[in-house]
Structures are given as structure tokens and as C-alpha cells.
């Protein structure tokens, strides 16, 4: 018997809003957050992006902190999401001595380094600190506002980072190392990775169309989300009400190519199977799949194959909410996990925007918003290098 792990708090920031309330209304209204670049400084104005509609200064104000030239956009986004998660779980500064934080990012402070890079040869100490800002520093900067956590850690597996942070945190709980671990990820847009994805020629010049026959790539997004994971013992002791349960998770490697997924989706298949097995579920128990669904020809075909292999002819409703937010890369795992939590709580299937035509051999996603009683949701996050991970969220009806 695996000790149950509960989620007792969640916070989210993405192109469709700050906080769960704004997020929920955008998901229900089918309003995308992807649009014209307003905050990122890049010459590629023709590329749509899912930006959080706040400047760094506005975020500093919302956080109620003094501005610091070292603040990165990733850290500010992370703080907004972390604050909401801690608040909901009722975790205050004096309780953090027993709370661990596993965060994740890949971009980290690249948004600041790229601004100064050309002048680094002659820069001062402050800019040298900025230039050497690492993923770990990003986590420290996010945490600093809230107090002293029992430990900090940072996972970085590209687009599956946040999901792998969930897995690390959950394993810490199961092993008895902690009773509460806050997990998640944060990632801002940067000129660096926008141009990198552009060089890989996988950015759609229109709104992305996951699982559509004519899909032409992804849109990049940004955001952050954190979940408070807690053991049953701690939930009981603190008298808090869980939002849902993390029933299972899996991590596998596609071991195929640094940027391409295998045609049969081996890594994805293994990650999903492992999550099901851990949850003690059959494929038929899954009521909805929140797909990785980036909108690239390669991912959506490979993920479709993996889903079909695992679920056979009875595929549950599937959608990619990246049509709302763009691909929020390292943060996508927990941003989409929060969408799943909202779907469980408010009984709806998030729609896959912009879908029109079925792709050959592909799955057909949820194209119209629908009410639905959901019990078990599978959420996928796959990263470069074939770092594929899946998790299952469950509502235990009394």
C-alpha cells in the first residue's frame, strides 16, 4: 500500500491570468492568452507568444517588495504563484522550517543575462552576479520572500521540469524525509529560447493548433505554478482539506533523439504506463488526458501513438491547454496540473482551442467546452532529450 499524497494548495500564473480564479474563467470562456509580443524584446514580432500580461515592475508592486536590480522575470512569476499556493495551504513563514521546496526552471535568469551579455567583458560586480545567475539561484530568489524552507532543490529537465519536480517532492514524502513539500516550476520568456526554438523551426506563426492536421508548431509561453504536496498524516494533523490526491506518476526516457520524439512514443508510453501502475488504475479509469500537445508535427503524432498504444480504441477525452497559454516549457507541468485540479473541482473538460481537422493517425481532442464529472486525470509533460513524465490526479469522492 502506497501512502497517499494530497495536494493542499495550488498557485498559478500564466498568459490567461494571475491566480486560479482568472485562470478558471479564461478556461471556461475559451479565451486564449496567446497574442502579440508586448514585453519581450525581440525582432521576431511576427511570432505569437503567451506572455503574462504584467511588466516586471507591476509584479514587484503586486508582491509588495522593494525592487532589486537582480530580480529576474522567472523569479517574479515564481513568487506570485508560490504565494498563492502557500496561502491556500495555510503555510505561514513560521511553518517553513518543516516545508521543503523543489522548484524547476531552465531559462532561470537568462532574460537578464542576454540583456547584458554584450557588455559582460567590462561589467561591474552586480552585472557579473546577474550573468552567473543559475537555476539554483532562481529557486533561492523565489523562496527568499517567504522565509527559510527546510531545503531547496532545483530540477531542470527542459519542458518536463515541473513534473519531475513533483516526482522528486512526492518521493521525498513517501520516503519519510518530509511531510510537506512544495513543488513546481517557473519560466519566463527569453530572447534566447525564442530564437532557439525558431532556429529549430518549430514555432507556428499563427496561434498553435495542437493535434490539428495543419498544425505548424508551437507558441512559446511563460508562467509559473506550485503545488503543496502533503502526507495523509500531515493533512490530518493540520486539519486541512485536500484539493485532490496525487495518485501516481512515472518518469521514463524516450532515449531516441535530443529534440525529436520517437515515432512510436516509447518514452511517453512508458511514463504513462508507470503512472497508471503506481495509481493501481486501468486505462479505462482515466476520465481525461491533459496532453503535452505542443502543436509540433512531431510531438502530437508521437504522443497520439503512445496514447493509442496504451488506451486502445477507448481513448478518454484529450486536450492540450497549450492552445491557451503557449508552451510554458519548464513550468508547463505544474501550470497544467493546476488546470487539471480546476477541471476536477469545477467539473469541466478544458477545450483544445483552434482544432479543426483530424490528423492522420492522430487523436481527436475535445474541441467544444463540455461539463463532465471527472475522477481521474492523466497529465503529460515531455522534454527535450526524451525526458518524459506523467502524473495522475484523483478526487476521492466520499
Amino acid at each position, binding site marked *: 500500500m502506497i501512502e497517499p499524497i494530497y495536494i493542499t494548495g495550488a498557485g498559478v500564473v500564466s498568459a490567461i491570468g494571475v491566480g486560479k480564479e482568472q485562470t478558471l474563467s479564461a478556461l471556461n470562456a475559451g479565451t486564449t492568452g496567446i497574442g502579440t509580443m508586448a514585453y519581450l524584446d525581440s525582432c521576431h514580432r511576427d511570432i505569437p507568444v503567451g506572455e503574462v500580461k504584467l511588466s516586471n515592475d507591476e509584479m514587484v508592486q503586486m508582491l509588495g517588495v522593494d525592487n532589486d536590480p537582480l530580480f529576474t522575470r522567472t523569479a517574479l512569476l515564481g513568487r506570485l504563484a508560490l504565494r498563492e499556493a502557500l496561502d491556500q495551504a495555510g503555510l505561514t513563514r513560521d511553518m517553513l522550517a518543516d516545508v521543503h521546496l523543489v522548484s524547476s526552471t531552465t531559462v532561470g535568469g537568462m532574460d537578464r543575462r542576454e540583456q547584458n551579455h554584450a557588455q559582460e567583458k567590462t561589467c561591474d560586480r552586480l552585472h557579473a552576479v546577474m550573468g552567473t545567475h543559475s537555476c539554483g539561484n532562481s529557486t533561492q530568489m523565489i523562496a527568499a520572500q517567504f522565509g527559510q524552507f527546510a531545503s531547496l532543490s*532545483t530540477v531542470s529537465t527542459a519542458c518536463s521540469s515541473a513534473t519531475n519536480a513533483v516526482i522528486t517532492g512526492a518521493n521525498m514524502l513517501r520516503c519519510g524525509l518530509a511531510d510537506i513539500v512544495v513543488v513546481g516550476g517557473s519560466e519566463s520568456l527569453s*530572447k534566447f529560447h525564442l530564437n532557439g526554438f525558431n532556429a529549430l523551426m518549430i514555432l507556428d506563426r499563427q496561434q498553435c493548433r495542437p493535434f490539428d492536421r495543419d498544425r505548424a508548431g508551437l507558441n512559446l509561453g511563460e508562467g509559473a505554478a506550485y503545488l503543496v504536496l502533503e502526507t495523509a498524516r500531515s493533512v490530518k494533523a493540520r486539519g486541512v482539506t485536500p484539493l485532490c490526491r496525487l495518485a501516481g506518476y512515472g518518469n521514463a526516457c524516450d532515449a531516441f533523439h535530443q529534440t525529436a520524439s520517437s515515432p512510436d512514443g516509447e518514452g511517453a508510453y512508458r511514463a504513462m504506463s508507470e503512472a497508471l501502475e503506481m495509481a493501481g488504475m486501468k486505462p479505462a479509469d482515466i476520465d481525461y488526458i491533459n496532453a503535452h500537445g505542443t502543436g509540433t508535427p512531431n510531438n502530437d503524432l508521437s504522443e497520439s501513438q503512445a496514447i493509442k498504444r496504451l488506451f486502445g480504441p477507448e481513448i478518454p477525452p484529450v486536450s492540450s491547454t497549450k492552445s491557451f497559454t503557449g508552451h510554458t516549457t519548464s513550468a508547463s507541468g505544474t501550470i497544467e496540473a493546476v488546470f487539471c485540479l480546476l477541471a476536477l473541482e469545477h467539473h469541466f473538460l478544458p477545450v483544445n482551442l483552434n482544432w479543426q481537422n483530424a490528423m492522420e493517425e492522430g487523436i481527436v481532442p475535445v474541441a467544444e467546452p463540455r461539463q463532465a464529472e471527472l475522477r481521474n486525470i492523466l497529465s503529460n509533460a515531455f522534454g*527535450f532529450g526524451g525526458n518524459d513524465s506523467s502524473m495522475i490526479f484523483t478526487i476521492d469522492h466520499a
Partner: protein
Amino acid sequence: MSQPKIYIQAAEQVSIQQPLSQQWMSEPILTDQLLATATVPNYRDFIDPREARRMGGLIKRALVTTLKVLRDTGVEHPDAFITGTSIGSLDYTERFLDALDESEEALSPTYFMQSPHNTVGSALAIHTRSHGYNTTYSHGACSFDWAVMDAWIQMQLGKIRTALVGGYEEMTQDYFELLQKTGYVGQPGMAPCAEMSMSMMLNTQCSDNCLCQLAGVAMGNLAYRERMRQQLAQMLNAAHLTAADVSAVMTGKNGNPDNDACYDGIVDDLLPGVPLLRYKHLFGENYTASAMGVYAAAHCLAQGMVPDCLQEQPRLFKPCAILLVNQMDQQEYSLMLLTKI
């Protein structure tokens, strides 16, 4: 539930010392350079040049130490590849940044695709076609320590039995100069800033060739010193040892006064008066340098001796247990206890 024992079955390095060798134990290479590059083995002995054509130095060095460990242990597909790297393929990342300063057009995708930190760990899996658990920690100077922690946790949970755990880092002249300005490295009297690769096989089964036992690992925040003491006490207790059984403490002292004073404070808190070892003057300073500490301690325990070059006050003794202490920004720490078999 009985807790499985965990062994370090093999550990290999590429650094400023002789690569893939323990020659440093008898003939250490000492340098007074502030920035030192790794001495690399012949990559062709391990990787087809065609396959390696896009790999940066970091990935090639990581592959070489990993393939040597896989060969030596006969573990073809470990249950997990867990990687620690704070800055990943820095060289390619900076090449992409340099190109971006020129123009946002006609950029090489190769430099970008290797810039995510997990490219190293996934390259190891792709080369060996290993579909098991694969993750990467990028948590500054504790990146490698979290990789060990993850393997430890999953072995306790029975999820995995073998894990290839590695610490990999590279350095560029430009980045070194930034680090120099921050005061982290690069002042006279400090350990050289260096690049390094260390791969080790953790195995829950003991075999004749195992180097030592990984008896415990713990992570934490230096704001909570009492918890750190409890963690050490629990670790010793689980290994049926007392504080007196710890032969030495291996610290990450590097000649930077702030850094070294922090270690002295921790040691005074945990095991005052115990003989001290250090490794960064030999293998260099870097974010995943703690991997070299584990490597050095494991080989000392396997050989039943500690070379003078590691000791703060050299003497002859047979180590039974070595505690490794690592700290990050004087805020976070890791403890690892290695014991002889």
C-alpha cells in the same frame, strides 16, 4: 521494511588530474593556474566521431566517464540516470548568446539544443538506449548532491536498484571572468576553477569490486543547525556507528576565506577535532565539485588509505568512515557518509 544498503560500485573522473585513473593518489598534479582545463582521454576509444560530431566537451567527457563505469560494472542499462549540473553545456550556451548579440537571424540550432541542462543526462540515455528514470538537478553547488539524494530515496522506496549518478560541469574563459568578479573563484591562493566529469554507479547489491558503502545522505538549510546535527546522528545510528568512528571529514574548502570559514563552522558543530580532508585544490572548484569529493573519498576507502595530498595535516591511517560536507552560498548544505566495506 528493511532498508537496502547502497554501494558505490565504481566511480570515474575526467578533470585536471590524469583522466580515468587513480594516478592522482600517488602522483597528484598541482597547478597554480586560476582557470584550468580538463585533461581529456581519447574520445575515439569510447564514442564514434560521427555520433560525437555535435557534442560539446561537457557531453563527451560525461559520456566517457559513464561508459567506463558501465563497462567496469557490467551494468548495461542502469535503472536510472541521475545527473547534477549547475550550468550544463555552458560553452554552447555562450556561443548561442554571442551569435544573438550579432543578430536574431540564421542561428545555429545545435548550440541551442545543447543548452538545456538535461542534454547531458539524456545524451547518456540516448547513447546507451536506456529507457529508465532520467532526471537532472541544477541546484548550484548542491546539484550533484541532489542527484545522489534522489537515487538514495528511490532505492529506499525500492523503485530502483542501480543508478548512474554523475556530476558534470564545464567552464569558459568568459564565465570564469564573471565568477572572478563575483569573488567566487579566481583569486590567488584559491583552488583553480576547473571543469570536470564524474560518473559513479550506485547499486543495492554488493559485489567484489564495490568501492565503499553510501551509508547516508541528507540535505538542508544552514539556518537550521540543530536539524543538521540530528541528521548526522541518525545517519551514524543507521550505520551502527558513533561519532568516534568517523575517520575524517572531507570538506569543500577552496582557499576562499568566507567559504572555508563556513566549513570550519559546520565541522565544529558536527564533529569538532576530527581530521580534515580537502579535494578542490586537486580537482578544481566548480559547481559540481562535490562529485569529486565523493569520488576521492570512495577510492580512499577502497584502498584503505588516504594520500597525503588530501589531508590538511598528513598522517598515516586506515579510513573506516568519511563524512562529506558540502555547502552552497553559506545557506544550504549536504552531508554524505561513506563507509568501508
